[in-house]
């Protein structure tokens, strides 16, 4: 019972107890989380995954700002019904450049992990302006104001620098060209799009509806939505190479 007497030290000194709790919890965390960072089997490299283009990144920022994740998940779980409805289950690598990730845990609306390319740009715009115009029973709010709000991408380079610090491979060259790339991705008929696609494979240019006033927030959000889940070619993906 002498051990029990030592425990009295913790019970009588709150600060010692606090430090003790911290140490015990830290051990749990280290054992459970630590190995995930070096275990080969948990870090899967997947061909095709690329960082967001500056326009998509700006769209993602709007997605986060408007709290889309509160109603839409971006995580197709490896369950039969989800794969049947939404497509191939999500891979961790597909959100490796997301800081923070947008997996979400609430599906008032459908999962968006593979919504890219599923509908036309016009549909996305019409649906954002008035969801009920295309989905009569929808409870989604209207986001028509996005079409009237000019896109503020003055700080897109800083955004990319911060993400580079977090490990997203934005090179100084990519960051330098960011603002030009935003405009290039909104000029589908411009030759600069070819260069953009070299830097960001599979990037798709979208017609801007902003006109003279420049890109709108809706332009950026649509570009982001239309690339979700499109970067990995699942015909080439070998799930068995990393069975888990």
């Amino acid at each position, binding site marked *: 019972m002498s051990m029990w007497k030592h425990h009295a030290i913790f019970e009588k000194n709150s600060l010692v107890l606090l430090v003790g709790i911290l140490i015990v919890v830290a051990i749990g965390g280290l054992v*459970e989380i630590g190995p995930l960072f070096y275990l080969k089997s948990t870090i899967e490299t997947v061909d095709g995954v690329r960082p967001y283009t500056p326009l998509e990144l700006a769209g993602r920022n709007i997605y986060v700002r408007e709290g889309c994740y509160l109603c839409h998940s971006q995580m197709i779980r*490896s369950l*039969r019904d989800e*794969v049947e409805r939404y497509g191939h289950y999500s891979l961790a690598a597909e959100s490796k450049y997301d800081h923070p990730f947008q997996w979400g845990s609430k599906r008032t609306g459908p999962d968006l992990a593979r919504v890219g390319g*599923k509908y036309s740009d016009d*549909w996305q715009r019409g649906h954002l302006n008035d969801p009920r*115009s295309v989905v009569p029973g929808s409870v989604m709010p209207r986001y028509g104001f996005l079409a009237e709000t000019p896109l503020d991408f003055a700080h897109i380079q800083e955004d990319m620098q911060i993400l580079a610090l977090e490990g997203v491979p934005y090179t100084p060259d990519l960051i330098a060209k960011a603002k030009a790339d935003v405009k290039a991705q909104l000029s589908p008929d411009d030759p600069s799009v070819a260069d953009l696609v070299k830097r960001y494979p599979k990037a798709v240019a979208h017609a801007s509806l902003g006109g003279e006033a420049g890109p709108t927030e809706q332009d950026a959000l649509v570009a982001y939505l239309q690339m979700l889940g499109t970067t990995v070619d699942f015909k080439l993906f070998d799930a068995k190479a990393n069975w888990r």
Partner: protein
Amino acid sequence: MVDNTHQDIDAATGTATTGHEWDGIKELNTPLPKWWLYILYATMVWAVGYWFLYPAIPLPGGHTAGLLGWTSRGAVTADLQDLQAQRAAMVGQLNKSTLQQIAADPKLAEFARAYGRSSFGVNCAPCHGSNGQGSVGYPNLTADRWLWGGKLDQISQTITHGARSGDADGHEGNMPAFGKDGILTKDQIGQVAAYVVSLSTPTTADVSAGKKVFAENCAPCHGDNAKGNSDVGAPNLTTKIWLYGGDKATIQETLTNGRGGHMPAWGSKLDPATIKALTVYVHSLGGGQ
């Protein structure tokens, strides 16, 4: 955690105390109910079994795989294989048969419609409506009017390759922006819009000026009789069925800025049997030719 050296029975309840005393009040050491305690022990035993059977413990070289060899990817793959096996007989027939054969065989057609309907709900309904009724800008599939043709093979072509989708075999052809591109003046657009309205809503007003403009500019695609041409996706303008609206203001808007809706190419997203089933389902919605 009882300190047995301080064993002390509380007189009032007959229960042992823990030996802790605060201002003359002693803490009773009431034992946990037996049923609760045994359930706790059982869960501990269960957990140990779980460690051995399922992937559990991270190690430097990987993780313990578990005796059952269970993986989440393996489980969903097996689930999907079961599903495919369940459907294999009918889906195999879909794959083997031509669209015409499917439509002619009552049992196969019924399966195709049911299979197509579930795929339609996921992939097509957001634009074309849950029953194929369409909405402004998205064609009604139940109305016996087809932009790109309503025969089985034509529907299949449209689903597989889309319209203005970027697919090399997709349908191309836009309604030109007659106003924006300066092909027609504002007056001419007003005249021809009045004429087009008169095609479906007879009027006594004089629309001959518009008729002349129509013959020169619109007839190459929509036809001299304005009944449309599904080779270029030009709609029939003589009925009350309108994609964007048949009132004069909307028609003027269409003439001024042009139109050209996008239909994605589904050939790269859906397997051939699903596209066949969708084709038969869409064909059966009421407008199939």
